[in-house]
């Protein structure tokens, strides 16, 4: 049985520019689904294929192969104007020769809705984004943040089944961007429309999304909730791309079930969750905030000796940069150490403890 409750289903979607066999592969066999009424984010660095994927969903580009289903119906043969999805563009792309009200009503007008219905819906949308006072202005007379709201209202007005957002916050300044994050999330909850959001900003993705797909080099690296992606990255790329991390070269001493004992970089032996698929060498990942300078409940000893090289104080966090006996750097962001009255002096040797479940072993050499 086909699960029609999913807003979007992608089956081995591939996009190649130029020659189908030797051309540039922008997207290689992407398969995932977006649930109904979900805030779903496509996260990746530039050139990862996330914008290509969005353009395939909107219908601005056609797939090379594979299938895209919208609420169970294949849509890859439909052109953009036939798809019940709307887009919020990166540069807003408001029509400069139309008023704000005409911009918001454009989609409904093109659908041939009666003028009275269009007018009512335009007012409703302008009220939703708090832009009623601007209905007769032109886009050039609005600030970036105001244009952003109008672009949202315009894309939401025809009640799309899925709303696509192409890095809509990247053109705003930091404060406004943070305010808009919350507003977007609330808007999604209020309208009940499925959002597919494209960004290269991992913080944005973690803050807003129900689920995230991480992309790199045209390949989906991992799909999961923000916590899952942060705490259990599927591979070294995801571990490196999302948040800060320490990476140590290690060799495997023994394996038992899902855990492995590893050694390396001057560390005698430490237990790690095993994601190395049987390799005898690999990369140990551990996040700075999972490392501590004192023992405690649920902590295991990570390194006997680490020399403090420097401290980086950011107000809400304090990070010690230390060196393990073989010279590998290890960053430690200990909450207790931040609260301590006196920072640890440069050159001093400390003992390092880790949250028991935190270290993870990956196959490969890392970066």
């Amino acid at each position, binding site marked *: 049985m086909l699960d029609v409750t999913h807003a979007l289903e992608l089956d081995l979607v591939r996009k190649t520019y130029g020659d189908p066999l030797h051309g540039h592969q922008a997207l290689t066999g992407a398969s995932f689904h977006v649930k109904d009424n979900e805030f779903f984010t496509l996260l990746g660095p530039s050139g990862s294929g996330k914008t290509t994927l969005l353009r395939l969903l909107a219908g601005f580009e056609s797939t090379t192969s594979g299938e895209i289903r919208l609420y169970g119906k294949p849509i890859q043969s439909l052109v953009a*104007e036939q798809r019940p999805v*709307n887009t919020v563009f990166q540069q807003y*792309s408001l029509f400069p020769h139309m008023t704000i009200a005409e911009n918001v009503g454009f989609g409904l007008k093109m659908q041939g809705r009666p003028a009275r219905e269009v007018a009512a819906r335009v007012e409703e949308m302008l009220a939703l984004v708090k832009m009623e006072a601007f209905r007769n202005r032109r886009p050039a007379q609005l600030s970036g943040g105001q244009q952003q709201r109008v672009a949202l209202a315009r894309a939401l007005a025809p009640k799309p089944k899925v709303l696509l957002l192409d890095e809509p916050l990247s053109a705003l300044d930091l404060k406004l961007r943070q305010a808009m994050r919350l507003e977007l999330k609330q808007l999604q909850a209020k309208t009940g429309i499925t959002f597919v959001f494209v960004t290269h900003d991992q913080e944005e993705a973690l803050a807003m999304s129900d689920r995230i797909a991480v992309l790199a080099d045209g390949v989906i690296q991992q799909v999961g909730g923000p916590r899952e992606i942060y705490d259990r990255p599927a591979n070294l790329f995801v571990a490196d791309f999302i948040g800060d991390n320490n990476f140590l070269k290690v060799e495997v001493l023994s394996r038992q079930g899902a855990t492995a004992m590893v050694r390396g970089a001057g560390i005698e032996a430490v237990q790690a969750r095993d994601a190395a698929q049987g390799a005898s060498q690999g990369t140990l990942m551990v996040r700075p905030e999972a490392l501590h300078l004192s023992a405690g409940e649920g902590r295991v000893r990570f390194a006997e000796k680490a020399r403090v090289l420097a401290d980086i104080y950011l107000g809400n966090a304090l990070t010690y940069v230390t060196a393990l006996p073989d010279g590998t750097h290890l960053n430690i962001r200990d909450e207790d150490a931040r609260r301590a009255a006196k920072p640890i002096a440069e050159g001093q040797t400390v003992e390092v403890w880790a949250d028991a479940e935190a270290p993870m072993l990956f196959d490969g050499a890392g970066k």
Partner: protein
Amino acid sequence: MARNSHSRIIGQFPGFGKFTFLFFVYLYLPIIVVMVLSFNASPAATVWGGFSLEWYGKALANADLRTAAWNSIQIAVSAALLSTVLATFAANTLHRLTGRKDATLAQGVIMLPLVLPEIVMAVALLSFFSSLGVSLGKGNLIIAHTLLCLPFAFLPIRARLQGMDASLTEAAADLYARPFSRFRHVTLPMLMPGIVSGFMLAFVVSMDNFTVSLLVSQAGSTTLPVFIFGMLRVGVTPDVNAASTLIILASTALVVVSFLLAGRNPK
């Protein structure tokens, strides 16, 4: 005051004002002379004999001159309209096919009247019409002028298109506008300033054209420049000055109107 400053704008260099004045005198003095002499009472075109509006009366009463002017206006409006419509479609299509070799070639062909010596075009058009036996009177001139005006109408529209954000038509498509609606509601209004200035340029080029008009025009379809040339063959008479002054006033009015129209557009 600005003597000590390191960066001086060009207008502050000594003698700039005088030089500019001389430049404009050089440019406009002949035109001013023509305008002044059109009010000359003396029948000798170059000797001042007091103020008079006599020659305007003569020029306006000259039925042949009026016919030639009316011909010119009809031909210029038709040729400008035709070339602007063709140029709009050509610019849109070529813009969509940017980068393709045949599109570059097609654009080159459209631009050809700009670089070909006009006499070559005139001879070619003349033999084209006569070998095909096309004898449409003003129609022949409209066809010839449309061809001449095409690059002038094409260039401003093409420039406007190149400055247009491609995501605007994508946004229109995203909002359920079919190709024709996208053109009608988004592309066309955005191109309007380019289309208006293309039309104005084409109109002026057609009004002003002499070489092609002289060879292609048939009896009864004489245009104003050709007619004035004919008048000059019997010597410069003051009514030529009067007619010229009227043309200058009309062109100035046209430029002012197009300037006001362009200023009305947002952005």
